[in-house]
């Protein structure tokens, strides 16, 4: 019978090894800072510009916990999300002089993997996604206008470059196209539509409104800005004509940023200048009729939508707030770890939830 203990000893060793390997795997998994349930759930991605190197803070929207922080190679000034791949694209603007950058970063926020696409021109400052491509607006002005770069997201390669008339203006996407504001030869304000597939451009006169932001509501571009008072103008996405224009009351400054949240259109006025408001304005997403104010516990400097919920970055407190716009109730608040943000942006990945 002495030999009968050997099989049990063998089994014991195997079990012990399995337990040890399991422990190592768990420790390694935690050490990589991988999100637990966030692998497939909805995520908010917040840009913290920082100084020298920006950070993407990935928040698991189901738990409100920070799931991951992704350090980028330089200062990024804007982010956008590609709906089909879920990749987050950042405009890697960098600093001045030798610190300037000329890249788009493509981040898989579920794994933390980052790829950089080098651009032929320095200083990309704004980015939007449309038609499987990322479009980046540069600070560089050529003879035919401000330079933009198009990056094919699937292949992570430069798809082309183009120019928009005049100095760099507002930059946005709506109705499957890229939109920007520019200046004509006589100084007249223009609204330009860029076809994401062909990079061809159409220009339309913008009238007297001074554009300060571009957003999308009900599939149409909305120009935000000032026309004596704060205003929002809905544009026909096909011919660039004005569909309707409304005054936006109750904000300290003219509107500059907005997002559609279900049937509502949440409008903010954060410009980076004082006075900084603590309220947003809710409009009807289709008619833009005023629905009243939405008080925010903080300074709303960046907005995004997660289904029927509104995501707000509070610049002052360095928090991501999830708000029910129908009641104004804060559903969750996530500390981003850095109060007093210089500026920020937020996007949602996997918004199905």
């Amino acid at each position, binding site marked *: 019978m002495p030999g009968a203990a050997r099989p049990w000893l063998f089994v014991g060793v195997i079990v012990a090894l399995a337990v040890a390997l399991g422990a190592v795997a768990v420790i390694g998994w935690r050490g990589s800072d991988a999100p637990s349930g966030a692998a497939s759930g909805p995520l908010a991605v917040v840009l913290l*510009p920082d*100084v*020298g190197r920006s950070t993407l803070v990935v928040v698991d929207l189901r738990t409100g916990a920070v799931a991951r922080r992704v350090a980028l190679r330089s*200062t990024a*000034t804007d982010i956008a999300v590609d709906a089909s791949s879920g990749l987050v694209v950042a405009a890697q*603007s*960098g*600093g*001045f*002089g*030798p*610190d*300037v950058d000329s890249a788009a970063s493509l981040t898989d926020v579920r794994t933390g993997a980052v790829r950089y696409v080098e651009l032929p*021109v*320095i*200083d990309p*400052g*704004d980015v939007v996604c449309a038609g499987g491509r990322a479009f980046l607006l540069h*600070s*560089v*002005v*050529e*003879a035919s206008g401000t*330079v933009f770069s198009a990056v094919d997201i699937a292949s992570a390669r430069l798809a082309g470059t183009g120019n928009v008339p005049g*100095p*760099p*203006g*507002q930059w946005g996407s709506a109705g499957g196209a890229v939109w920007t504001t520019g200046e004509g030869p006589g100084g007249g304000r223009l609204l330009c539509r860029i076809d994401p597939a062909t990079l061809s451009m159409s220009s339309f006169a913008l009238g007297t409104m*001074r*554009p*300060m*932001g571009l957003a999308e509501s009900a599939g149409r571009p909305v120009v935000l*800005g000032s026309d004596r008072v704060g205003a929002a103008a809905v544009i026909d996405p096909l011919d660039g004509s004005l569909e309707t224009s409304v005054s936006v009351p109750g904000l300290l400054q003219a509107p*500059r940023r907005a997002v559609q949240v279900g049937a509502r259109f949440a409008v903010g006025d*954060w*410009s*980076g*200048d*004082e006075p900084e408001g603590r309220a947003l304005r809710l409009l009807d997403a289709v008619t833009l009729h005023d629905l009243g104010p939405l008080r925010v516990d903080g300074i709303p400097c960046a907005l995004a939508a997660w289904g029927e919920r509104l995501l707000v970055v509070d610049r002052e407190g360095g928090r991501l707030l999830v708000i029910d716009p129908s009641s104004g109730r804060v559903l969750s608040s996530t500390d981003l770890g850095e109060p007093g943000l*210089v*500026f920020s942006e937020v996007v949602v990945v996997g918004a199905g939830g």
Partner: protein
Amino acid sequence: MYRIIRVASLAALALLVLPQAAFGLTKPFVAPHPDRAPAEAQMTASLSALEDASLSYDALASLSGGGSGGTNAIAFTSLYDSDIVVVLDPSSVTGHAGLFDRSHYTGISSYSVLSANISPSNGVQYEKCAKYRLYEWAYALRVPQEVGHRVAVRDYAARQLRKPYSVFASKTDLKSFYCSKLAWVAYRNVTGIDLDGDGGFWVWPVDLILSDYTSVVGRWS
């Protein structure tokens, strides 16, 4: 040569931020800094010099850049057209300078500062205001005796858009620019005044602060 420039510039910057400048909008004392023409300046083909990576990197790193210190809260809404923005931080030595264009300003996300950034071509550009907040200190300078010319100065600077960047070209070479030179040239050629506080080959951003013609109308950290 550039090591000397860096050391001297760091000393100048250290003096710049001494407590003597802590109150009001008085001008800080700045120690003399290098201002003799570099050997590279003899190379009239400045673009070819820029293509020499080892040469250009050292030169450019010693003269501009930065953005690894703190942040500032510069209030762009308080600025006029052609006010000069100078940003500094411990790593940048001389920092960066630009000329404000109020007509294009809609918030810190807008591109409203005319300056020159490293680009072999198209160096003069409209820079995004938000980037100017990513420095530890920001100064706003105004030229009080020339406020009547501020639109003309701004427009002159805007007409230099697309011209290449070079730190090796002299101040009077109008074919290429570096950041503080754009503001200097715009005022020099429109109003006739020389904003270089200490003369010499280069006009550094700190020279614009030190000029007898400029007033510090804002300082943020």
